[in-house]
């Protein structure tokens, strides 16, 4: 059984009387890719800031890499935005970080690290001229310099084009599968997390709502009947009054029926009660629906 690389116990951060991270406890096993999900203001970035030491907890504790085993290069992170020196080139940024980590500034190693993220050491362009995608890649390269055991990434694919997102995903998968790097990644692009994550932490209003594996998440991912009607609220009332239990209105004209009942029966019930159905099809929940249901946002 893999040991936990991050353990948090009742971690709390209060800003001006508001608990931005509220009594959070969780474990992340080594070798996992953990998706950190939550709406804006849920506390994801603050949690990452706490785990990296950028913010000091109000109360609670956490440990990374089991404390004793941690070295200067064990943990790398990009939190909020890449921290790069704009007046210097990519190679110089890596040399600076290698010095901070106490590593030799070996040109060949720096070149290979840049190549890993699709950048060229021969490019002397200053970072201030870089596109967002290039900055993200360089920031990842800076993180990888010390061969970290743990990588914390705060929305690393925001602002990237589809190719960039694809490249980032492949890189992260490679780091995890070939180098054994544990990755914690927060993102709003749930479809991408769905392709990557082995574990999930779902946050809402500063608390961890759910901590579960990808397999457990899949168990919540139920199929449902999607009905287009004239008045969704009316249709929901009809179904509920006829014994259906798991029915929600998703908008003014959309009804979702999660009960495991044949579609013909549902249609018959509605027709007998004068509710016209414009279309019906079966859909899978997807990570978005599961997440919204967990935080009560699927109205």
């Amino acid at each position, binding site marked *: 059984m893999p040991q936990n690389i991050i353990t948090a116990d009742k971690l709390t951060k209060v800003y001006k009387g508001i608990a931005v991270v509220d009594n959070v406890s969780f474990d992340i096993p080594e070798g996992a890719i953990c998706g950190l999900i939550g709406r804006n203001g849920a506390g994801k970035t603050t949690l990452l800031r706490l785990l990296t*030491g*950028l*913010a000091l907890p109000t109360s609670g504790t956490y440990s990374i890499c089991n404390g004793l085993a941690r070295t*200067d290069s064990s*943990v790398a992170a990009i*939190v909020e935005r890449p921290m790069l*020196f704009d007046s210097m080139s990519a190679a110089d940024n890596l040399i600076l970080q290698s*010095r901070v*980590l106490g590593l030799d500034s070996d040109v060949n190693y720096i070149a290979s690290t840049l190549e890993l993220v699709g950048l060229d050491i021969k490019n002397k362009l200053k970072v201030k001229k870089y596109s967002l995608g290039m900055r993200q890649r360089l920031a990842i390269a*800076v993180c990888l310099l010390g061969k970290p055991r743990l990588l914390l990434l705060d929305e690393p694919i925001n602002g990237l084009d589809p190719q960039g997102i694809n490249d980032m995903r492949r890189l992260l998968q490679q780091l995890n599968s070939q180098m054994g790097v544990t990755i914690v990644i927060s993102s709003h692009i749930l479809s991408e997390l769905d392709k990557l994550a082995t574990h999930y932490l779902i946050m809402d209003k500063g608390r961890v709502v759910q901590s579960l594996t990808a397999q457990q998440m899949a168990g919540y991912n139920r199929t449902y009947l999607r009905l287009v009607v004239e008045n969704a609220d009316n249709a929901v009332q009809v179904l509920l009054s006829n014994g259906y239990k798991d029915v929600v209105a998703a908008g003014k004209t959309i009804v979702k029926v999660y009960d495991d009942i044949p579609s013909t029966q549902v249609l018959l019930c509605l027709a007998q009660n004068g509710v016209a159905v414009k279309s019906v099809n079966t859909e899978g929940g997807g990570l978005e629906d599961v997440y919204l249901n967990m935080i009560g946002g699927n109205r």
Partner: protein
Amino acid sequence: MISVISSLLYRLFRSVYFYVCLAIAVFAPLLQAGTIKLLLIFAQSLPGAETVALAADPLTLLVAETNVTSTMATLVVIAVGLLIGSDFSQGLVRNAIIANKKRTEIYGAYMISMVTLILIYCTAGMLSASVLYISILGNIYEYSAGYYIGSAFAFYGLQLLSMTLIGTMTVFLCVGFKRVSTPLILGLLIVNVGLPLILAGSQLTVIFGTGQYEALTWIPIFNLSMLTSTMDGALMAKCVVGLLIPIAALAVGMPFYFKKTDIR
């Protein structure tokens, strides 16, 4: 700490700003000496020329470089703010913190790098000022060039201390403000407006003609250039202690502040 210092110095010596400020440190005395020379030439044609000449004594001018209201002090605010303090304002210290460096270690490394920067600028500035003031102004005075240069360097240590005070103050302001422009503006206001106002306020009796000038020997940052004629060992010691106290207060107090705050 050594690794962070190594990184900081690597960046300093590859920064254009470092060399621009160094050039200013070297050439600013040229402008000052040149301006004074022109004024002397003009003044010598007027009655009271001897008084004007005495007021432009190179030693006094050189020691004026040690003041916290001098050109060097302004340069230190700008250089330290842009090259050292901006890392705190802009959050670039994050990389070191994420790399598990202790905050006191990081802060100590930045202070050492700041002192290194000040050492370089002050040495270059004092050497340049010595050469330029003597060569442009020195031929009208009774002492040899060697005397003036030697005396000036006697105050070199005081200059390092007073500039370290200015640098520490600048870093302190950068830790407290998010935009680097704010601490820079504040630092320049303190050096060029605030301190002269405090000095003027301390000498109101002289300004209004009701009393005599009294050197504030326990606040030597204002008075170094005015103490040249009366400087002795005891007074020098008071000046040194008077500078060390605020440096120690800022340099030692600030790590506690830095240790307890969240990083941007």
